[in-house]
């Protein structure tokens, strides 16, 4: 076979084998990247939902103050009740 024939065979291989393989590989890579994007969007959406649930956290401070006050009140109530029942 002459050199021209080998050239044509190379062109055919480039068009039939190399180009589809490159396209398939790049498509798979792009698909994985887009999948990562969707997962990241999902994580961000649920993270924002969690942030909304954390709005009640500052109320813990008020709860601590209330329990501290309730502790003193219970002690005073118990002492007064013990004096009432005479123990």
């Amino acid at each position, binding site marked *: 076979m002459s050199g021209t024939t080998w050239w044509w065979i*190379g062109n055919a291989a480039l068009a039939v084998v190399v180009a589809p393989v490159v396209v398939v590989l790049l498509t798979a890579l792009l698909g994985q*990247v887009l999948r990562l994007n969707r997962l990241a969007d999902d994580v961000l959406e649920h993270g924002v939902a969690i942030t909304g649930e954390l709005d009640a956290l500052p109320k813990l401070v008020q709860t601590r103050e209330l329990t501290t006050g309730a*502790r003193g009140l219970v002690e005073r109530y118990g002492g007064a*009740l013990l004096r009432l029942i005479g123990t």
Partner: protein
Amino acid sequence: MGIETVVTLVLVAVLVAVLAVYILAIGFALRRLSFTLGTIVIGLRAIAQQTAPVGAVVGDLIKDVDVIEDALDGLTAAVVAAKKTPRKPPPPAPVLVAPQPSRVRPPQAVAWKPEADEPEAPPNPRTGDEWDDVVAARAPGGMAPIGAVAGGRTAAQGRRAQARSSGRRLRRRTPRSAPGAASMSDAVARAREKVEAQSQP
């Protein structure tokens, strides 16, 4: 330049174009992914900063609740112990001080006779019925110590006997002790009854 060279150049150009398109698409997707991941990281840092004091606050809450629980447990145990132990006897009546002998006449027992128009002695909130007995024992004109009226019936005893015989309830004219003490003892009795009623299953 032959035809095969042109075909090769065209094929390579198409392949490069496809590669460029895919690389650009992947680049844009990665840029968007980077932005999303950066947002997630910022959100996670904010959450971590916002939830940092939760442990300390919850620890304080647990301590307070433990103290309250211990206090209520002790109170319950004290109430149960007070329920099991017999009640304390009522405080003794105030000691009645008899009048000085120098001020009173010799002992003079007076027998009580039920009379319809018996004058009532003025109430004395300081001592109560016992003092009324003494005052009633003075009739008809002298004051006698407590022991002197033991042989006979005083006016108050007569009123009680008459009330028992007639079936009517004698009205207390004066408090047995000081008004504050009486109300306090009543309040203690009510509280004790309430506690016992609540502690029963």
